[in-house]
């Protein structure tokens, strides 16, 4: 079997490697099948003898134009390969995941995240937060090698040691088949693929034997984790946990306002922020309990991690707009379902209901 990158022979581009390959191939053809006699000198030069040998081959094989030239996808090359006993190798399929379809034109954003079935909200919500505020970190973490068609992903282990993980096309398709954290499995369109690339690498980081598939790695990352773990894995720094503190001098309103201001300032500094929600505390009075009043809800999924999109001052309160990594707020179960991925909640209500565990703020 012989492959050439450009035409060889009369009027051809005659690249040295191509001519040499044709000369070697022609010399393997028997004279009664149109092979050269005597054999050609294998020097990579398309002189009269080489062109003559090509013409001889064409004349000896019915249906070929005797023009002394072999084209890349032409019938003479096909016949030559047929005589050699093999057909040209099929072109490998174009890779579905490349550096061309990692991001939408504006770069990575939180809107590229779609958590469908894996319980790794802490990770994908953090990915969204970093992409939203500091997309450079995401872009610098992913390198595509067109030769191997693999991605090299930079992540950090729990101790902050950098880890470079190579992710194959097969592993990425596996992530899509498992309905991972990108939209590819939902739309069938291979675009905005970066969440799949990083989530696959994250599973690989925890898999002791990736050769047998990443089931073990996925099992480990979906058992749950902390927002600080995810921030460490993505940025190399666990970030800072910001929680509500009641200050006697400020009172409840002032303490909430201070918390909101801290988070808002972080966003203004383009630091990624996540919100960790927990079950509401039963703060009902005895009468409310006796009368069957429900426990006040904050509208957020309990034991979940959201990407904080924005903070807006609302009088003495702060409105917190969060994005659910599910890509929807249907099925939240707190009476405020909406198809929108984002939801705005009152920080004061979050604090009052006890539904806020903490914000996690990136240090980068």
């Amino acid at each position, binding site marked *: 079997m012989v492959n050439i990158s450009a035409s060889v022979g009369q009027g051809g581009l005659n690249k040295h490697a191509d001519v040499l390959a044709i000369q070697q191939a022609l010399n393997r053809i028997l004279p009664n099948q149109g092979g050269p006699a005597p054999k050609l000198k294998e020097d990579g030069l398309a002189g009269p003898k080489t062109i003559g040998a090509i013409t001889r081959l064409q004349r000896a094989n019915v249906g070929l134009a005797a023009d002394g030239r072999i084209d890349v996808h032409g019938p003479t090359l096909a016949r030559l390969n047929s005589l050699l006993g093999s057909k040209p190798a099929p072109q490998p399929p174009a890779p579905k995941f490349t550096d061309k379809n990692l991001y939408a034109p504006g770069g990575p954003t939180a809107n590229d995240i779609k*958590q*469908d*079935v*894996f*319980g790794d*909200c802490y990770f994908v919500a953090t990915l969204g937060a970093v992409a939203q505020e500091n997309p450079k970190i995401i872009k610098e973490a992913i390198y595509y090698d067109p030769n191997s068609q693999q991605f090299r992903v930079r992540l950090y282990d729990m101790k902050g040691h950098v880890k470079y993980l190579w992710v194959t096309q097969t592993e990425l398709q596996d992530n899509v*088949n*498992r*309905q*991972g954290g990108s939209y590819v*499995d*939902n739309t069938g369109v291979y675009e905005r693929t970066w969440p799949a690339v990083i989530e696959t690498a994250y599973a690989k980081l925890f898999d002791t034997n990736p050769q047998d598939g990443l*089931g073990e790695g*996925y*099992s480990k990352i*979906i*058992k749950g984790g902390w927002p600080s773990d995810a921030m460490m894995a993505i940025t190399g720094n666990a970030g800072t946990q910001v929680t509500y503190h009641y200050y006697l001098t400020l009172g409840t309103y002032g303490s909430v306002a201070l918390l909101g201001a801290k988070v808002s300032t972080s966003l203004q500094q383009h630091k990624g922020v996540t919100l960790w929600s927990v*079950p509401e505390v039963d703060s009902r009075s005895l009468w409310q309990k006796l009368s069957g009043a429900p426990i006040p809800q904050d509208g957020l*999924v*309990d*034991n*979940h991690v959201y990407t904080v999109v924005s903070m807006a001052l609302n009088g003495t309160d702060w409105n917190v707009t969060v994005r659910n990594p*599910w*890509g*929807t707020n*249907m*099925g*939240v*179960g707190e009476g405020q*379902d909406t*198809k929108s991925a984002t939801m705005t909640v009152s920080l004061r209500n979050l604090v009052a209901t006890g539904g806020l565990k903490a914000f996690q703020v990136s240090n980068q």
Partner: protein
Amino acid sequence: MRPWKNASIVVALAMSAWGCGMAEIKVFQPKPLDNLKEVPATDDSKKLDAEVTAFLRNQYAIASARYYQAPGEIPWIAISKSVQNQMAEKSIQRTMFDWYEPGIDFVEVYPEGKNAFAVAMPTGTKSNADKLVGFYILSANAAAKK
């Protein structure tokens, strides 16, 4: 051996067996999300039962089941999370079998003593498609425990 003693053993065993067969399996059953509509058993639910049974590999047997239809707008993770959170309130933790493949198997098992609760969805169901969901009460499979 005295005949009356043999007879008492037989009676005791018979009563024990009868008792086992009739005993109600009590496990905590989480409430389905409001968006889920209960549906009767169908051929599809029988297929789901078979999938669940195969996944359990004789660790548990299905004692009873309820089926729900969930619209495509409710992702599987919402259903899974709702169950997980209700279980967490009761300090019941999910178990992950060695053979569990995330994103391929959709059977989540919460052991309670010898029995268990499980929530399941057919393999291959897309998260954004309408989906059949099964809530299962599982009994310990005596054969597997020996």
